[in-house]
């Protein structure tokens, strides 16, 4: 994307191996910024559940204790927030969406997923971008329980999309036939959100 040359701007260059991992317009951070639209929900673990619903033969709900028994994997992934920061090599422990899908029979008509969270947050992701290890529900970050302000007890992580798609405080997935905008997607943010295509805002 061409741009007006900014008089006197040289920029801060990173080593090529870092630069090549930063999507267009992004900059590197080493801390972990927090962004959310409202107060952080604090759901006690004995009240927490995770539900797969919508276009499935019969919905499935796990309690926190049951969810902990699901097979986990560790993931080391780069994450990019639409507010421009990218954090490399973040380390998570969680359950892949593939594992969760084994517990339900999804209707072949389902092509999209709406993730929903405590506090009413929602975000939409195409179903084919949730499978084959592309998305997971994480409850540990850096070998520690996921902090509430970062989405704990559990958050969705879809590292190949902008981080607003990685719904904090997730409570379930709803399977849908047609794509529908979630919270930010109906407030001017891109319906898909691929950082490498710089799909930040509606119309990008």
């Amino acid at each position, binding site marked *: 994307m061409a741009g007006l040359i900014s008089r006197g701007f040289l920029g801060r260059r990173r080593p090529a191996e870092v630069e090549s991992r930063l999507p267009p317009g992004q900059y590197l951070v080493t801390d972990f*910024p927090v962004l959310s639209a*409202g107060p*952080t929900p604090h759901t006690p673990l004995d009240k927490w559940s995770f539900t797969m619903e919508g276009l499935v033969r019969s919905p499935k709900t796990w309690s926190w204790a049951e969810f902990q028994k699901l097979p986990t994997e560790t993931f080391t992934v780069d994450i990019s927030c639409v507010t421009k920061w990218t954090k490399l090599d973040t380390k998570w422990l969680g359950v892949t969406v593939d594992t969760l899908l084994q517990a339900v029979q999804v209707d072949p008509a389902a092509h999209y997923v709406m993730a929903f969270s405590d506090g009413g947050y929602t975000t939409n992701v195409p179903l084919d971008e949730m499978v084959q290890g592309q998305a997971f529900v994480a409850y540990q970050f850096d070998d520690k329980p996921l902090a509430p*302000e970062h989405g704990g007890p559990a958050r969705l992580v879809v590292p190949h999309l902008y981080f607003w798609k990685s719904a904090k405080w997730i409570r379930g997935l709803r399977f849908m036939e047609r794509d529908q905008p979630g919270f930010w997607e109906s407030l001017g943010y891109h319906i898909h959100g691929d950082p490498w295509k710089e799909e930040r805002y509606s119309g990008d």
Partner: protein
Amino acid sequence: MEQPVLQWQAGTVTAIRPETLKTKSFTLELPKWMAHRPGQHYDVRLTAPDGYQTQRSYSIASAPERMGELELTVERIEDGEVSPYLHDVLVPGDQLEVRGPIGGYFVWEVSLGGPLLLIAGGSGVVPLMAMLRHRAAQHATMPTRMLYSSRTADDVIYRDELDALAASDRTFEVFFSFTRQPPTGWTGYRRRIDAAMLGEVIKPFDKRARVYLCGPTLLVEAVANTLVQMELPTEQIRTERFGPSGA
């Protein structure tokens, strides 16, 4: 909701005004100006001669009533890449690429009504100032209070304007708190925002308050949690946060 496609445009810097030692306000004239909603932000993009680019988001400080132009207030981050350029290199007459306005949740307009409680930590006051300027431009009278926490008196952005607004508008009050060095003779708050302080400031509004809260993550987390404990409905609390990042 119909969304406009946001395109990059080259704004012309028409004025640069120091606000505090670390913050400056930049006025840009935009060829394709459109009215923003107070609380929204713009993206700024810098391009080096070899094509290298970087972007940041900055809150709009001006009211949408100022047609054709835009004011961004930016804090200079010591080891930052963009804010030192804006502070140290940019001069009036220069062009700056921007696109916006962006964001549709942390916004307040007169039509949303009050009572309105604006809570700021540090440069988190910027989007709240856009709301206050819009409210003043519309001569709106819904009861409004601002609670603004700063480290020292020198760190307060828009101090004179806030004092003048409070002096001329009976429906607006501002409460400052200083966490490190209050001004000489200061008799007001001199601590981090806590439950007692929030209780005092929110009292006349009680649970009807519409709260907009912007500042560093720790402040926003603490204040939002306290407001929830005070049983303010969560849908009345809108937050915007910035961490140590955001250079």
